């Protein structure tokens, strides 16, 4: 709603017409120059018409958006509802410029007649909190004699969700421990995938009997299958820093962009398969979502991801964080691994026997944001040393049995998970 005691006020156009017209008439009368009246006569007429159309009603304006929740790259429309605009002829709307917010018409400025209001199209280009729809509205009376406003209209704080590419992955969980799901379990049960042919036990279903083998062996044999279970996925998102330049969706991505979009894609992939997903963000906000399933849980995870602000976690060190990784859970750590503490925590999870995968979101060639006063050469050298440390850390993680893969779309984890599943099925020497 329009705020404050806004009033119609005279325009510069009206003031100019009356001032020049009055001055001209004054000069003509004073020095006796009828030709000057010819010059300023039209301006006086224009000014008089502007005066005659002086508005008498105070209009109201209210802007509203067509959508309250958006994914990055999606668009919505801001429409203006007005009251008492009988005295206004044109309405000008100018939307505030915000980073990662594309507006149409260009610049978010639109001029339309009061009886044919044009909407402004808005498209957030990056996930995160955005103030959408802040604008200024002005109305102009006929003959441009009076103007109402510009009146600021407040926008809406919106958490733009990261985009999700819906691809159902064929990756299986290495150690699914759950109830009913889509992942092949190591134990036998009532699934669909063939496991072995074994002797009949009491309790076996008759339809499982393999008659050909039973006749050959002389005793009843049944086909056993693997149980199919759901799994738990723990997403650990490193939001302690953002490296590289972010230009929004379908453009250059920063490390945090890749991190957030990868987490969203993995959560969508597993929740879509009926699995349980938990999220733990390492950031000042410490966003956390416990294990859950379904589309509502996915929406919750996406909203938490959209709320991320990069920074080091407050009040707690990474070593002290309880990641609440349950037995059999797949742990996906999305991190550029520039923090040694997080690498140590990751190794600790691996040593607990959990399948842990590190997804590297650092885009090639990305650099940190350096303070303008810093020496560029020194900063470049420091970054190179940091990258060397990182490559050493990643090699150590791989040696500890934790695969490290760069993010390459929703199918990134498939091959790694297959390898982990095969590894988990191999016989082990128990000491």
């Amino acid at each position, binding site marked *: 709603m329009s705020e404050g005691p806004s*009033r*119609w006020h005279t*325009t*510069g*156009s009206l*003031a*100019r*017409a009356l*001032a*020049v017209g009055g*001055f*001209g*008439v004054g*000069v*003509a*009368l004073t*020095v*006796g*120059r*009828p*030709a*000057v*009246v*010819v*010059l*300023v*006569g*039209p*301006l*006086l*007429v*224009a000014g*008089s*018409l502007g*005066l*005659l159309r*002086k508005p*008498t*009603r*105070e209009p109201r304006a209210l802007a509203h958006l067509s959508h309250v929740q958006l994914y990055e790259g999606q668009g919505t429309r801001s429409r203006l509802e007005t009251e008492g605009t009988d005295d206004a002829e*044109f309405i*000008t709307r*100018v939307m505030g*410029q915000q980073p990662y917010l594309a507006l149409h*018409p*260009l*610049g978010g*400025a*639109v*001029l*339309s*007649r009061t009886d044919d209001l044009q909407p402004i199209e808005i498209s957030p280009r990056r996930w995160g909190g955005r103030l959408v729809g802040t604008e200024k509205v002005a109305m*102009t009376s006929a*003959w*441009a004699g009076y*103007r109402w406003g510009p009146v600021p209209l407040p926008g809406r704080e919106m958490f733009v969700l990261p985009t999700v590419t819906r691809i159902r992955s064929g990756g299986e969980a290495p150690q699914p421990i759950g109830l009913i799901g889509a992942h092949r379990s190591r134990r036998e049960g009532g699934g669909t995938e063939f496991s072995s042919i074994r002797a009949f036990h009491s309790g076996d279903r008759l339809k499982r009997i393999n008659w050909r083998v039973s006749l050959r062996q002389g005793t009843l044999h049944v086909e056993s299958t693997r149980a199919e279970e759901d799994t738990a996925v723990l997403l650990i998102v490193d939001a302690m820093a953002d490296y590289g330049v972010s230009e929004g969706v379908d453009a250059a991505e920063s490390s945090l962009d890749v991190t957030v979009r990868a987490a969203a894609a993995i959560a969508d992939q597993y929740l879509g398969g009926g699995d349980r997903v938990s999220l733990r963000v390492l950031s000042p906000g410490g966003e956390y979502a416990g294990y859950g399933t379904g589309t509502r849980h996915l929406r919750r995870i996406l909203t938490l991801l959209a709320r991320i602000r990069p920074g080091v976690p407050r009040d707690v060190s990474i070593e002290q964080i309880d990641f609440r990784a349950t037995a059999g859970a797949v742990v996906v750590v999305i991190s550029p691994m520039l923090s040694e503490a997080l690498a140590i925590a990751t190794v600790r999870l691996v040593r607990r026997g959990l399948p842990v995968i590190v997804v590297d979101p650092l885009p090639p060639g990305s650099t940190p944001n350096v303070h303008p006063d810093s020496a560029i050469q020194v900063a470049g050298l420091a970054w190179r040393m940091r990258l060397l440390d990182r490559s050493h850390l990643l090699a150590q993680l791989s040696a500890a049995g934790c695969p490290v893969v760069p993010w390459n779309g929703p199918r990134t984890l498939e091959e790694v998970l297959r390898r982990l599943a095969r590894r988990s099925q191999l016989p082990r020497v128990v000491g």
Partner: protein
Amino acid sequence: MRLTVAPSVWAVRVVGILGLLLGLLGGVPEGYTPSVAVVAVVLLGGVLAAFRPDDLAASLAMGVVVVFWAVQLDTQVPVGCLVAAAGLVTAHVAGTLLTYGPPFMAIPGDLLVLWVVRGFLVWLAAPVIWLVARVYADHATPTSFWLAGLATALAGAVLAALVVRPTAESDR
């Protein structure tokens, strides 16, 4: 994103400056030629007005044009006055169009057409006054000028009072 000035805004700015120059130079064919300094002052005012249309620069530039004509002419009413009036109306309309929105907003075609028509209609007052002035050129005296001026001022005051009063009520 860096916003650039819309091409239509540039066009209207140029038209506004040309309008002011037309107002000043409209009498050149009849021998009313301004000095280079006056042209420069009006041009400067026009440029300022093109970028700050709500400021005083446009009014001052128009005022210079009015003073130039008042100095150049005595009681004669040449045809050049009509051209000059058209120039001033053009400059006024251009200045008005520029105040509807920020410079990066394109000026819509319907608004442009509306103001071109309005500009032409108000300009029609100039030939009417010109004709009246021509007809009464030999009869008018300084006294009759003063009487006409007083009548105009009185009519203007009544009009202004009529217009302003309802606003005061609505504000309460």
